[in-house]
């Protein structure tokens, strides 16, 4: 079943158009990578999906239901969860409270506080600490955990490898395997092409608000990806 269908999405910040006719598809159980340089429109795309940007044209369908005009509060209850760029954890709350915030929209499923602590054991040790006391990688874990707490059908990850040491990124990406195993579909937005393409089934490439490449991740050449990424 096609979990997410985006058709000819145009998104605007005021009068400035950021996305031009973007069409993306995610099947249930898939991991799809969306790659592109800084400013290509990747975060804008994710924000449009979850309802944080008002001005848009085109159709967005999630689990068969049209969510095109819906506000973020409503969309969040349908099983679409975002790990925002920059983590955006709540500094006034401790780690555990941050995770619990993610459970406000809890749908039935396997993810709960205990399971998240199983996935990221270091968070259990630090659960009463402020997120500011955690390392970058640990903060990413909290952000991912928070998004998991609602048991999403589709997890949108915005640059979860940004600013992290390679070993830490390995850890994060390993956790994605567990998340996938529990049945969630994933959209990975990354600047790191190799990582994202390596973890995904299919890849889309975004350049200046337009899709420049789309296909199976396996067998996609670096040449091809480069051209689509940089627009040369």
């Amino acid at each position, binding site marked *: 079943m096609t979990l997410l269908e985006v058709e000819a999405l145009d998104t605007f910040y005021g009068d400035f158009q950021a996305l031009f006719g973007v069409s993306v598809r995610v099947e249930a159980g898939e991991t799809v990578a969306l790659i592109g340089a800084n400013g290509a429109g990747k975060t804008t795309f994710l924000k449009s999906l979850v309802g*944080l940007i008002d001005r848009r044209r085109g159709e967005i369908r999630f689990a068969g239901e049209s969510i095109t005009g819906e506000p973020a509060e409503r969309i969040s209850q349908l099983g679409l969860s975002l790990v925002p760029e920059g983590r955006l954890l709540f500094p006034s709350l401790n780690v555990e409270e941050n995770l619990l915030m993610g459970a406000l929209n809890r749908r039935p499923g396997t993810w709960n506080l205990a399971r998240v602590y199983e996935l990221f054991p270091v968070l259990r040790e630090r659960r009463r600490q402020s997120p500011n006391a955690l390392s970058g990688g640990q903060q990413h874990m909290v952000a991912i955990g928070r998004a998991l707490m609602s048991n999403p059908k589709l997890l949108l990850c915005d640059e979860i490898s940004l600013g992290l040491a390679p070993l830490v990124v390995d850890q994060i990406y390993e956790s994605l395997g567990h998340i996938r195993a529990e049945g969630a579909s994933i959209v990975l937005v990354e600047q790191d092409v190799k990582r994202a393409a390596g973890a995904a089934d299919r890849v889309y490439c975004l350049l200046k608000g337009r899709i420049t490449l789309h296909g199976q991740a396996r067998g996609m050449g670096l040449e091809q990806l480069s051209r689509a990424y940089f627009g040369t």
Partner: protein
Amino acid sequence: MMWVETIINGILYGGLYGLLGVGLALIVGVMRVVNLSHGEFIVLSAFIGVSLVGVFPGVHPLVLLLPVAAIAFGLGFVLQAALINRVVTRPDPFAAILLTFGVAVVMRNLMVEIYGADLRHLQAGQLAQASTGIGGLHVGVLPLLILALSVALFTGLQLLLTRTRFGRIVRATADHRDVVRLMGVNPGRVYNLVMGLSLALASVAGMLLAIRASFSPYSGVERLLVAFEVVVLGGLGTFWGAMLGGITLGVAELVGLRLDPNAGPLYAHLLFLVGVLLRPSGLFRVRT
């Protein structure tokens, strides 16, 4: 001996000043809005108290605290939902300031229309004069009650914010208004409830203050000033700081009055000035 009593009474009334300010501190902390009509709502609550006393003459004003607080909660909710929520998302803080200033002016004139410009007083009967001996000192019963109530309300507020699900949601909304939408929270609704709470707290302070001092529709500015000083002196971001700020001002005012009976609240204001000059970020600032 008299000095000790004065200081103690200052502490007790200081709790009241803290209560005047904590509602304002809540709004500033959660939605970064300075509600310039805060003082007018404090005065309005006292007028509503007076009206209710007129309707239920046998009832002691302290019993009326609850219904007045409930009414104030409703007013705050509506104020936020109908007006302030329209400007709270703008990056420019002036819109909210101008809006609440306008609300204050309208309210003041409405109160003059409805209640007249005369000075009023809430009668607390015997309670206002009663004093009790504690360790050989004469301490007013009413001030003791007021302090107890203030501490109870402050503690209740702290517990609400730190130990409940609602408190978590409020703190998270204060941190990142957009991100909470991703969790199904409507920030506007959170603000409605917080503003209701703010004015409910202010109304309790308003009623208690009306027992101690007389008021008119024009008293709002004075009340706002105290609330402001309490919040700034205590330090933004801490509620117990507001309580301690209030106590500091209360003591300063009563000690000052003893030294110089014509001074009015001058010494409290002077202390505030000195405090802000020496420690601009507040006496008891908490790391944000």
